[in-house]
């Protein structure tokens, strides 16, 4: 054996780090309620026009879970809690689990949904434990236009095909605004929105730490279902955001068949707390997969606006436009 081979073997032995399970006395934590909740305004009623259909109602719902010590199993769904919802400091309703819909329905009818500026507060009581949160509905920011003209001018990335769109809106200059932009597939039958994977090249979004990209994480295929951004670089200006969203899988054939599709474009003006929760959760998920050799990140908690609990009481206003794209076959 050559002398250099001995060196390599020795080096390998040294660098071959080892792992072993260890026992550590971690204190058991008291389980805490985990809130998953979203409330938004009633969508505008718009007259059906070319390419558009009726607006999509977004139910105001709340789901509850229970945390646990790390070595135990957390509970995903709690169904026997009591929820007290207040609107503008008056009790709106006491709510129990709706086993048909499988969530706590905060506003049963769209007409009761809050308006921009309304104060909302939530109190959840479960097994003598109580958590609470409050928020103010942000102002509504309307979509001025959406350029969908290049819907079929797709590009292929990996196994996915992406389409392009550009959404334009007027940012209110008098306040800090936090936005979430989504494209969803139709949820007309089950009342649910199905957000599609979405990306952008806009540097005011891609430069943020929570934006998954080839640069800041190895997980650049991170399943991002919305774009989150603030108006700090365009406060008070009319702004256009270009984005790309997935429209299907690429099957390596010479033709691509686009079926009939309904796409719902949403612009949400969210509370700062909602934005902090979502961005911190996204950053957390991005960092949790980091390779230690290339620099593990600072440990971080996901933000919460639930007093004595975890999760998010998410409140936002939104504007939406719904487009129908007829089927088409494209030769590559």
């Amino acid at each position, binding site marked *: 054996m050559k002398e*250099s081979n001995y060196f390599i073997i020795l080096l390998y032995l040294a660098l071959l780090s080892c792992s072993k399970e*260890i026992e550590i006395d971690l204190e058991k934590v008291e389980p805490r309620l*985990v809130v998953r909740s979203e409330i938004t305004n009633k969508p505008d009623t718009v007259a059906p026009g070319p390419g558009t259909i009726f607006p999509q109602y977004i139910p105001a719902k709340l789901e509850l*879970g229970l945390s646990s010590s790390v070595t*135990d199993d957390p509970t995903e769904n709690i169904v026997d809690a009591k929820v007290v919802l207040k609107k503008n400091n008056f009790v709106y309703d006491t709510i129990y689990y709706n086993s048909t819909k499988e969530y706590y329905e905060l506003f049963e009818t769209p007409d009761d949904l809050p308006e921009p500026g309304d104060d909302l507060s939530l109190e959840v009581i479960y097994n003598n434990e109580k958590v609470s949160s409050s928020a103010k509905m942000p102002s509504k920011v309307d979509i001025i236009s959406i350029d969908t003209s290049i819907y079929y001018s797709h590009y292929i990335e990996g196994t996915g095909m992406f389409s392009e769109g550009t959404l334009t809106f007027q940012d209110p200059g008098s306040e800090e605004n936090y936005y979430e932009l989504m494209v969803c597939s139709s949820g007309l039958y089950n009342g649910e929105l199905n957000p599609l994977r979405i990306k952008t090249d806009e540097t005011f979004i891609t430069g943020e*730490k929570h934006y998954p990209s080839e640069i*800041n994480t190895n997980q650049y295929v991170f399943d991002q279902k919305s774009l989150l951004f603030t108006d700090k670089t365009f406060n008070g200006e009319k702004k256009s955001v270009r984005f790309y969203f997935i429209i299907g899988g690429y099957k390596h054939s010479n033709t691509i068949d686009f079926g009939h599709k309904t796409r719902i474009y949403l612009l949400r003006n969210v509370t700062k707390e909602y934005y902090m929760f979502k961005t911190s959760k996204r950053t957390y998920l991005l960092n949790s997969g980091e390779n230690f050799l290339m620099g593990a*990140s600072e*440990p971080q908690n996901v933000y919460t606006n639930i007093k004595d609990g975890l999760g998010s009481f998410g409140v936002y206003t939104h504007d939406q436009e719904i487009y129908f794209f007829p089927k088409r076959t494209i030769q590559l």
Partner: protein
Amino acid sequence: MPRTLFISIVICLPLSLFGQQKIISGYLYDKSSNESIIEGVIFSIPSKNGVTTNEYGYYSLRLDSLDSIIIVRAYGYSDTMISLPKLKRGISLNIYLKPKITSFEEIDIYSGKMKVREDEMGVMSIPMKDVKRMPNLFGEVDIIKSYQMTPGVQSGGEGSSDYYVRGGGAEQNLMLLDDVPLYNISHFGGFFSVFNSDIIKNTKLIKSGFPSQYGGRLSSVLDVRSKEGNSKELIAQGAVGLLSTRLAVEGPIVKNKASFIVSGRINPIPVFRLIGNGLNYHFNDLNAKVNWDVSDNDKLFLSFYRGRDKVKDKSGGETDNTPSLKNTLSWGNTMVAFRWNHKFGSRVFSNMTLYNTNYSYIEEFEFKEDTDTSKRNIYNELFTGVRDVGFKYHLSLFLNSKIDLNLGVNSVFHRFTPNDIYYEQTGSDIENISRSNNTKMDALENIAYSEINIDLGWLSVKGGVRYSNYILDSLTYNNFEPRLVSSFNFFESWSLKYSYTVMNQYIHLLAYSGTGLPSDYWMPTNSEVPPSKGLQHSIGLYKSLNKDKYILSLEGYLKNTNNIIQFKPGETLIGQVGSWDETVEKNGKNRSYGLEFMAQKKRGDLHGWISATYSRSLLQFDNLNEGRVFPFKYDRPLSINVVAIYDLNDNVNFSLTWQYGSGYPITLADEIYIHNGDYIFHYDDINNTRMRDYHRLDVSFNHTKEKKWGERTWTISIFNLYNRKNPYYYYYEHEYENVSDGKGGAEAVKGDLKLYQRSLFNFFPSFSYSFKF
């Protein structure tokens, strides 16, 4: 007014104390190489006057009329007795000492001034000879690892050359190579430092009682002085080790007048690639120095250092249709310094330094895809660094046997590049984008200092003040930093010392706290991020036994630091388009305190030390941990170190080091929940758990043999002799169990979540071969 008066007194009073004394002054040299000797002692027995040579080997000794013999001694050299000619008022006398192989022999003659009575505290200086004999990892001799064995100094993790002094961050250590700051001292992912043992003459680590000439960092000063080169004969030395191979050549340019030394290191074996993890890691460094004795009064030096580490990680691109990803990191320092020593008569010594030091860190990311359907190129480069151009002028005035005065001015021009970003994307189906972000900022730091050393025998006092002025655009900071070290000497061999130090730091370091490769971003003080300020009280009791053969010390300290910064959780500068100061938590406070005990055996065949430290370092940020105090990442309440070096004879020696430390704190999640299908860990407090205690025994054996062609030394080191599995980091992972799927097969089912410990280096022998001819 009182401040001005104080400064005037400090500067002017001693000038009145020039007396009509007889002075000898000059340099102390190694007889075999003409290398100047630092910390040599020159003393007269009748008058009991004695001095120590400074960092340039210079001394100035006042003698009484009866003094006719002086004795000169230095570590590693034979004691020399010199009869003086009839003294005139002042004579110049360069002294040459003969090296000896063994350590100090027992001597009866004593200088009259014990080590413990010197007006310094919190100072450690480990002779290079001992550093080379201590056990090492991969055969790499490293002064930083040696200092990590001293009280109050913690390592940055297993095998790391990062160090943390008295609870301060790594950025709070001033690291000087030939009086010039280096901003990053890590090679090879931090496994060893940039200080090449072949070129180092002397090192000193100061933890408290900082002399006024030092500043700009809060926690410590590591002063490394390089050799000047043998001006008598040409010598080569080198070593072959597992991680690096090095070669140094030194010799005369003009015999006995001018010399040079050049030393370089490379890692010839691409270790990470060999173990198959895709990383390609290389480093190299080069030290060079030229020294010219222009006259008896003037010496010129030109020093150069350049070191670079580069890591490449490439994946994909195996075929034309697969995209390729390439990450490249590179970092390093470049330093060039010109120095001029000048003697003004026998009482005044001056040094002028002009320097340029540059640290840069570059991250490159490249994504390439060239398939039948898509063509994309994405390139991103992040450049961060700092360049200093500086001027220093230092004057030492040896007024009489009891009073010295140090004066100086510094001026440093900093060019900071916090996070320059260049981004470019081109492709068939994406928009062509090219953008760059220029973040360069210039700042000027001006310093003036003055310090007086008064030695009355039973009491010595070193008092000074340092004034610093920092200018960035229209922003200006001015700070006065009082310094005091007092030593009350009693019962001949006891000493009680107190020091008080105020320090300001105008540059900040941002680094990810993970265990990964270096990611050092040096940031300037600006209007949003004020300078960090540190205040330290230190008190110590010292006892010398058997004429400094043994020294016992007990030092306590209390240190408060404010305006420190660190990344906000989850923040990164990568891709950051806003101002860098938005990514950091500001106005952090650090409170650290501790008690350090040390027993040293300084002479004899068996020498070394035992130390024990109790210390705490606690941090507080308004927006972190809900404002609650949490332990610093390298907070180690208890640490114990044992260092023993045994010289069996002139050719063979053994050494042993053992260290014990409480486990470092880590942030461990204690709670878990599910949100929209995602499992999320949650922790209550930052650094809420401690890893297991750390302990390790290393041994080393050195065998030197004279050969016809020169001298060779085999070194065998065993790291972690009893194979302790020390924690490097912890992580959670679910265990999986194979469960029958009912169809004759098996499926992996997620089981319990368990906590695992990763250990890096277990029992590991290493060898190195060094030579000199």
